[in-house]
């Protein structure tokens, strides 16, 4: 046998198998051109696929945290604006009290404004966003405060009425109070018995259904912050105390000294409350800032990780399309070659 011998079948087979192989490669290359990613990411990356999967998972999780952070931000923003409203309201009230102190007719004004403010405070405390109470702490499904002036009489008013009666032996509306209650009597009452009505235990029993515990949000992968306030906070309690003493101790029936004792105590108390509110606003502001920072951090992390996932999974579009073109040319050449080889037979010449 001649060493250069080669069978007809092997000649034909050679072009046939190479065309098949190129067609398989063409399918892969086409898919990569159209999707921009590896046709089979698992085969392409091998063990590194686990990194791609965990990075995708992290991206999803971080995107979700950014979503849920908007819930927390909304709550914080609403709480902040409610607090700003409370501060403005309390400052207006102080002005009213100062003018009421010196003018005779101011009393009724002050009483009315105090009533309005008390009910406004209740409304603000009962505010909700998306069905969740803003000031109820973690008891988000409850309304923290109930109205003071209601029928039947609210627990808070019942307690105030009873304390007044116990102290002075009269009701608030009794005209005898003008002579019966001295300025120092009133001052003592305000500093002791009345003040006790607003301590932790009585506040929880008569006024508030809120939880002391604030709502906590997870704002980044391992960062939890408090993202609410609650009606049990001292600032709100002091406001309620100031409004109540002006609204419901029957100031229209008191002598000047007793009235002034109330007005002075109320002014002091509102001042203290405003300071507490500023502290609370500061605390919430810190939370807002932390949410914002967390979002920025998450966004930049998402960008980086998305880039890494792309580095792993994405094919060079230029390379992929060059491969397609090359394969197409090669396959065409193969076809031409096959046809030529088939024609090349001795039979045509004998």
């Amino acid at each position, binding site marked *: 046998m001649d060493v250069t011998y080669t069978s007809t079948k092997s000649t*034909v087979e050679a072009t046939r198998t190479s065309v098949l192989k190129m067609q398989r490669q063409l399918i892969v290359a086409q898919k990569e051109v159209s999707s921009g990613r590896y046709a089979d990411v698992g085969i392409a990356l091998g063990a590194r696929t686990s990194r791609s999967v965990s990075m995708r998972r992290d991206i999803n999780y971080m995107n979700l*945290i950014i979503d849920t952070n908007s819930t927390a931000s909304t709550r914080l923003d609403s709480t902040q604006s409610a607090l700003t409203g409370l501060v403005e309201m309390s400052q207006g009230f102080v002005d009213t009290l100062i003018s009421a102190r010196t003018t005779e007719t101011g009393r009724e004004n002050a009483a009315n404004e105090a009533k309005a403010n008390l009910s406004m405070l209740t409304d603000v405390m009962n505010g909700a966003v998306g069905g969740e109470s803003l000031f109820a702490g973690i008891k988000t499904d409850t309304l923290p405060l109930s109205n003071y002036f209601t029928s039947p009489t609210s627990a808070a008013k019942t307690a105030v009425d009873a304390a007044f009666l116990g102290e002075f032996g009269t009701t608030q509306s009794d005209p005898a109070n003008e002579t019966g209650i001295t300025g120092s009597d009133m001052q003592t009452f305000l500093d002791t018995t009345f003040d006790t009505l607003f301590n932790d235990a009585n506040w929880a029993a008569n006024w508030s259904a809120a939880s002391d515990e604030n709502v906590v949000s997870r704002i980044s992968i391992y960062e939890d912050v408090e993202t609410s306030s609650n009606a049990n906070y001292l600032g709100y309690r002091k406001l309620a105390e100031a409004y109540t003493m002006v609204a419901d101790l029957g100031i229209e029936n008191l002598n000047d000294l007793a009235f002034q004792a109330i007005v002075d105590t109320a002014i002091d108390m509102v001042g203290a409350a405003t300071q507490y509110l500023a502290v609370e606003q500061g605390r919430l502001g810190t939370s807002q800032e932390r949410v914002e920072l967390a979002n920025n951090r998450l966004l930049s992390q998402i960008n980086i990780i998305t880039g890494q996932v792309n580095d792993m999974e994405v094919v060079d579009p230029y390379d992929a399309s060059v491969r397609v073109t090359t394969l197409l040319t090669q396959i065409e050449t193969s076809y031409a070659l096959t046809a030529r080889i088939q024609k090349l037979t001795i039979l045509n010449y004998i």
Partner: protein
Amino acid sequence: MSLTAAMETARSNLSVLTAKTAVISRNIANTSNEFASRKIVGTATGHNGVGVHITSITRASDEALFHNVLSANSDASYQKALVDAMDQLNATINDTEQDASPAALIGKLKDALQEYSASPSELVRAQSAISAADDVATSLNSATELVQNVRSQADLEISGAVDTINSLLEQYGSVNQKVIDGTRIGSDVTDYLDQRDKILADLSQEIGIKTVAGNNYDLSIYTDSGVTLFQHTARAVTFDGLASYSAVDTGNALVIDGVPVTGSSATMPISSGRIKGLIEIRDDIAVTYQSQLDEMARGLIEMFAETDQTASGLPDATGLFSYPGSPTVPATGTLDTGIAGEISINAVYDSSQAGDPTLLRDGGANGAAYVYNTTGASGYSARLFELIDEFGVDRSFDASTQLGGTLSLENYASSSIGWMEENRQSAATAQEYSTTVLERASYSLTSVIGVNLDYEMSILLDLEHSFQATSRLISAIDSMYASLLEAGGR
């Protein structure tokens, strides 16, 4: 020398020419037949220089190339079996972009918990967290089913391969006998040799083989590990397939001539062929992958377990995820084979089964002692944060899963994907290589033993010329005889 001798020579040449033409026609007929070799006619001068006769019909062959083809064939079909089965297993993972793997679904469960923790009072968030958990459990269940199907399918294919091997060996026996008998009486056995090669090629696809030649072209077959498949008679190849597989089932070994050639008890284990690939899938890769799924399921059950909140010394009890052994929490770091097929959502959480999804936030699936949210506040999120953190907490996993050690469930789940894809990648690379080797080996063999049409046709031309010359010779001798007879008769 006489005219008679010349006539005799011419006549013998004619019969040789016809025989050669017949062989050419046989060759041409088999041009595109794989493993059909080119037949070669051997001739010799007759006694005392008178005439020519056919001494043999042999075939073009190359033992070394043929054995290359056999072993390349075994390797390629071994790798192909691996790749095919792993592509099936890969359906549990799919493209990373689709986020359909157990690992991705575990991530989604964490996302759902995060979403719930942001609005703990919303029931619909609780329900979507429960349904995300249900997706995880279902994906583990269906992955288990798929893995066991792959095993049972491999088992079935082994049974099929064993039937093929037995019938091939039987055919081989009769063809081999014809070769031996034919060789003894000196007849043309080339076609039988071709047939025998074809059978060997088919056989090598199922199982790695090697051959040893004996007298009279007798050929014995052994597995690549040395167990006799055929020596004078076919040896029994037996295999007991299982009707179906569950995670705890172990498949039977393949037994040849009474010797187990697969499994841990095999002293002479086969190393190539389709059966080898199928066995590796059934007993090794699928089993390991199953054990990884099992560890994921066990990890989930452990993560969501509830702890006694009253300090009364009660044991931990399974929470959101349960299994037939609930409420006992499975032992940590210890593989519980098949648990991935049994993991489910505890019905007390499932609102469609009259359960309460908020147990996820509050705890208490196992009674009042396990309640975390003691005040019942609707904005309570501490337990949810604890659960979210659990995803990243390191825990121990069984070393037999090949991913053992201490890592978080999230990372364990994605490592399992890495493990699978690494195996797939190396199998695919090996398959590509072995296929190329097979193509090259087949190409070399066919180019040596195959028929070249042009070559045969050119020989045919020679034969034609030779035939014409011989015919002319006969007619010349004839006219010589005629002249002689005419002269003698005068």
